[in-house]
């Protein structure tokens, strides 16, 4: 005989997951609809005017991506079960918000290009990853740990997470982001002519430039 309360529990929890995911998706769609692009034909505009129209869409798209992930954190708290009982629900909501908003951001970026057909999604994603690793490695790790802090709260988490964050900040400050990007194929050694140019300029500027390979 079926265990009806358990079946109902599973159905209701799944329906909450889908409902929260649907809210995040609707919110993303509305946000990107407001952002535009506000001009239909970007190709006909000169760059100062095109930039004026594309900039709010790009910055707003990135803000929406971050904001909806934050809503993902709060979703399980608002929708019923507390995060302590359903940590996977939170992870799922954050994942849905992030995945959907990043996909929409790609669609939006293509529409913002002067020539949308020439837009290379793979190259765009690769460049974005490269920049995130080089410049925002420590921020990414801290945001990631912050998310986990909502899933696994308490003093033991803090005692583990804070030293990890400190080590990552130190690593990033010492140029670890560039080294990591190089290892992952997102950065490479500068060509000889560029290294010579930097060396030449550093000799006149009196800076603390440390040449590296």
């Amino acid at each position, binding site marked *: 005989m079926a265990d009806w309360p358990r079946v109902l529990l599973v159905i209701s929890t799944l329906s909450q997951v889908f409902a929260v995911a649907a809210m995040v998706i609707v919110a993303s769609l509305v946000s990107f609809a407001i952002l535009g692009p506000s001009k239909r034909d970007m190709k006909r505009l000169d760059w100062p005017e095109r930039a004026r129209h594309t*900039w709010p869409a790009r910055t707003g798209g990135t803000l929406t991506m971050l904001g909806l992930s934050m809503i993902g954190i709060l979703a399980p708290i608002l929708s019923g079960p507390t995060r302590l009982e359903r940590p996977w629900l939170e992870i799922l909501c954050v994942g849905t918000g992030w995945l959907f908003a990043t996909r929409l951001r790609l669609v939006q970026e293509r529409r913002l290009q002067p020539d949308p057909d020439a837009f290379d999604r793979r190259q765009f994603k690769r460049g974005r990853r490269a920049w995130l690793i080089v410049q925002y490695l420590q921020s990414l790790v801290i945001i990631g*740990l912050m998310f986990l802090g909502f899933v696994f709260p*308490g003093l033991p988490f803090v005692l583990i*997470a804070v030293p990890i964050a400190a080590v990552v900040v130190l690593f990033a400050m010492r140029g670890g982001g*560039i080294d990591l990007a190089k290892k992952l194929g*997102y950065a490479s050694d*500068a060509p000889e002519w560029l290294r010579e140019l930097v060396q030449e*300029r550093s000799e006149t500027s009196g800076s603390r430039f440390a040449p590296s390979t």
Partner: protein
Amino acid sequence: MIEWEYANALALSMAGRVAVTRGAIDALDREQLGSVIDHELGHLAEPRHTRRVRLARLTVVIPFVALGPIVDTFGLWGLGLTFVGVILMSGIARRVGRSMEEHANGHSEDPEVYTRALEAIYRANDAPGILGTGVHPNLYDRMIAAGVTPDWPRPLPPSRWRPRLAMVAALLIAGFGIGFLRLIAYVVTSMAPEASWAAALWGGVQPG
């Protein structure tokens, strides 16, 4: 060299290293690239107190990893206070960032070449000539100050309300929608608190 088609350059002042993107190499000629490198090298020559501020700016975010436990202990007040902290910090960071930029700008040997390089970077990135916010001054004003007359009219700044409206709309829709779900669950379970289906609607957790 960073494999990114967006034209940009950065200095890692703690590590004494400079990085440029492939986009910057494609968009600039040798002289322009040299002037951008001068600027980044200027960051490496920052005085010790500026480097300390930079270090403090990076380490001050570490306590935010404990946001979850803070909210657990102090509730929404904890969340609110943390956000106030973030806003204050970003204000300080912007001010410090401006002074760092001014210091680095002093290292560009030829302001005319440097502003032409910036123009090429902005053009390649579709970045607005007038922004009105941020750490860097407006490109148009910088060019005029360097004695370069842009061959494009002074543009209007981009819309500031559009990204904010989009963000607020997204948060309101998601927030109210999720709050509405909770309200339905609460009302239904209040009507039949003993029923197993009511407990299931609440996700298996009886409302307190």
